[in-house]
């Protein structure tokens, strides 16, 4: 066997790969960008997709409910209504120019997906079928509208598969199971990003990828919370890497809690369950959403529903006085449950061992989606600071980016739309960049520092295991930085996260091998999580208002005078608290109004 035995830690020189463009992350955003790049630049172009998971394992595949576009296939609809809903749903922190682009391009993008092969459910006439979803309304808020295009409750699965399939067809190069650890940003090249440094998981070797344009589409970081719908691998790698490189993170304080997570497990029960007619009941058997949102009821936007659940629980009206309520879907009937929501029904049967047709389903809000992330313009170009200066060669799209089309709270189905529309636009913008840019130079300093950091981690024999620290972090964030926040809780959380960061400098990895060292991988991911948590808490402490998903007990009102602006958090220097700066939200058509549903 040609293997390096344990104990021999001399690392070979990094292997280098020269590509035209490199995409990090093979979720919906990354794959669509790669596909557009390939279609734009032609068969000769070397477009690489690096992913720490096999592409079809990406979390886009877990998305269920649908992707919205004002196709108007089942009832009248208009993309401007969609635009309004998005802005209102985001509690007016949305950049309206970006949301306009998204809602307008939605129609064409969804149709393009159909052309690529996505098996949408169909209407009897053979058109793409649509259904209701939370926060989506007719005629600027009059009542619910059918806008979510769907493929059973596997919309994300089909988006992911369809895009992967077409990437295979167009011969995109896939580097599967490589974990990106750093950006190549050689000093003195006007801050240009021209590649990434990655760990090949199968061999433990450090590889260096050079490219004329780099896209980050690494997904979210829900794993900073204890109860979350996110996968174990959603650890904010891309977000943290950008942050460490001195780039800002936008609106990190806004993290969406989805109202219907499975109790304790956190897995998501899609909003489609309510879209099809399911509703929430409290311990007294009341449909309590009628009180909080008289028009939209259970289909009000997610932050509203999640807060309502917490208020019921706080008032002692949880089931048996505990911290959960029930979702009632019994009346939907076997046909709807088995044909339109087969996977949801399956989850309930498998993990709770109960029958949704006859039993009430215990649910609890679950950490779901990061509205914030790496700031970009409408073509996925990353912003270097609050003034709007760009980072040459660097792009971001998907959940790890913040365009910001979701503002303070994302509407259901708008995230798949975000990854598609902006993944695609980023791809097109990158093709432009590739044509313009010249051959990149290597960043040997980054290579060396990644190798050194890995060696140091592996060499340490005493310290704490990552799992312990991660567990404490998740507990802290969930209880002190969750649906309801307050100055006192946030300050506690801040202190604890700081402590954990210090302790994490002494992480110990038990596995000293090279091949598939997942122990090392988890340690690295914990460090990424800690960075995300730090930026999140710091941004949340500063925002003294309640807006969208950021609900503060001590500042219960929205404050448009002082806070109609995006937070930009910068990593200052190790140890010091992040520096915060602000950038006004773009308002074009819809003036902020109080938000009711």
């Amino acid at each position, binding site marked *: *066997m040609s*293997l390096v035995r344990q104990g021999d830690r001399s690392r070979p020189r990094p292997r280098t790969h020269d590509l035209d463009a490199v995409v990090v992350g093979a979720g919906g955003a990354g794959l669509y960008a790669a596909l557009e790049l390939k279609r734009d630049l032609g068969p000769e172009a070397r477009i690489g997709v690096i992913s720490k998971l096999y592409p079809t394992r990406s979390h886009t595949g877990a998305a269920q409910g649908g992707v919205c576009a004002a196709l108007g296939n089942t009832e009248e609809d208009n993309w401007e209504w969609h635009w309004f809903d998005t802005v209102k749903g985001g509690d007016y922190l949305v950049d309206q120019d970006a949301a306009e682009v998204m809602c307008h391009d939605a129609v064409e993008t969804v149709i393009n997906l159909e052309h690529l092969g996505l098996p949408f459910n169909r209407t009897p006439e053979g058109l793409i079928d649509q259904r209701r979803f939370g926060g989506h309304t007719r005629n600027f808020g009059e009542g619910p509208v059918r806008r979510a295009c769907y493929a059973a409750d596997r919309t994300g699965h089909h988006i992911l598969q369809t895009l992967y399939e077409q990437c295979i067809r167009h011969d995109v*190069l896939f580097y599967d*199971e490589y974990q990106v650890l750093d950006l190549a940003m050689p000093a003195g090249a006007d801050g240009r990003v021209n590649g990434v440094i990655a760990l090949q998981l199968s061999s433990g070797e450090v590889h260096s990828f050079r490219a004329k344009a780099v896209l980050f589409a690494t997904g979210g970081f829900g794993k900073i919370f204890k109860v979350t719908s996110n996968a174990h691998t959603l650890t904010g790698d891309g977000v943290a890497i950008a942050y460490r490189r001195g780039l800002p993170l936008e609106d990190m304080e806004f993290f969406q809690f989805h109202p219907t997570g499975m109790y304790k497990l956190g897995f998501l029960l899609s909003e489609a369950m309510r879209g099809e007619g399911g509703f929430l009941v409290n311990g007294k058997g009341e449909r309590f959403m009628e009180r909080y949102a008289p028009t939209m009821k259970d289909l009000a936007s997610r932050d509203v529903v999640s807060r309502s659940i917490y208020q019921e629980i706080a008032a002692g009206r949880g089931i048996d006085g505990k911290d959960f309520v029930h979702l009632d879907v019994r009346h939907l009937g076997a046909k709807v449950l088995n044909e339109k929501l087969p996977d949801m029904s399956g989850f309930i049967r498998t993990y709770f061992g109960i029958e949704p047709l006859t039993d009430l389903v215990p649910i609890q809000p679950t950490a779901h989606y990061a509205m914030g992330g790496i700031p970009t313009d409408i073509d996925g170009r990353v912003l270097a600071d609050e003034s709007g200066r760009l980072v040459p060669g660097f792009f971001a799209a998907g959940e790890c980016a913040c365009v910001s089309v979701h503002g303070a709270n994302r509407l259901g189905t708008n995230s798949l739309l975000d990854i598609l529309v902006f993944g695609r636009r980023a791809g097109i913008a990158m093709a432009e960049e590739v044509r313009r840019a010249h051959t990149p130079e290597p960043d040997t300093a980054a290579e060396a520092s990644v190798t050194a950091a890995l060696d140091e981690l592996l060499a340490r024999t005493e310290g704490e295991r990552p799992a312990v620290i991660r567990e404490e972090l998740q507990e802290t964030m969930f209880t002190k930085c969750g649906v309801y926040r307050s100055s006192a809780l946030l300050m506690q959380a801040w202190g604890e996260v700081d402590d954990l960061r210090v302790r994490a400098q002494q992480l110990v990895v038990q596995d000293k091998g090279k091949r598939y060292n997942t122990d090392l991988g988890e340690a690295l991911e914990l460090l990424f999580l800690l960075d995300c948590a730090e930026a999140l808490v710091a941004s949340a402490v500063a925002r003294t208002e309640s807006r969208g998903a950021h609900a503060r007990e001590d500042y219960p009102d929205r404050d448009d005078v002082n806070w109609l602006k995006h937070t930009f958090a910068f990593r200052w220097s190790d140890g010091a608290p992040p520096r915060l700066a602000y950038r006004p939200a773009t308002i074009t058509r819809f003036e902020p109004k109080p938000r009711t549903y």
Partner: protein
Amino acid sequence: MAIGRRIWPVQGDPLRRNPSRAARPRPGEPGFERWMWYFTRISGLLLVVLAMGHMLIMHVLVQLTGQEISFAFVTSRWGTPFWRIYDLLLLVLALVHGVNGARIIIGDYVERGGLRSLLIGMLLALTFVLLLLGIFVIVTFDPAGAPAIGPFS
């Protein structure tokens, strides 16, 4: 504990063939495997009648009617062309069906290479000989006056 070496031959370098890319469809081989697939199924259906019929007559009916299998018995059956054709069909179909099956089984459990070719070669040779022998016996059998001394003596 030595477990399943054959199942997990950990050979060589763990490095992958990255980047992975669209595999070109393999060139379609000529459809031998396909025709044998059909042949197996169709011959199988015919064999239900032929083989089961044969077994029922030779082992069950004979028993029930209190007869014994003897030269005379064979003479009486092969006196009519119907049974000769019947047995001829049975012979050819069962042999080809069964031998093809055996070929597949060898292919499944013997690694590609010399031994596999050798075994399959031997199988085919044996089959060929037996097929000729069987056909010869059925076709040349003379019910009227069977010779006291056979052609092989």
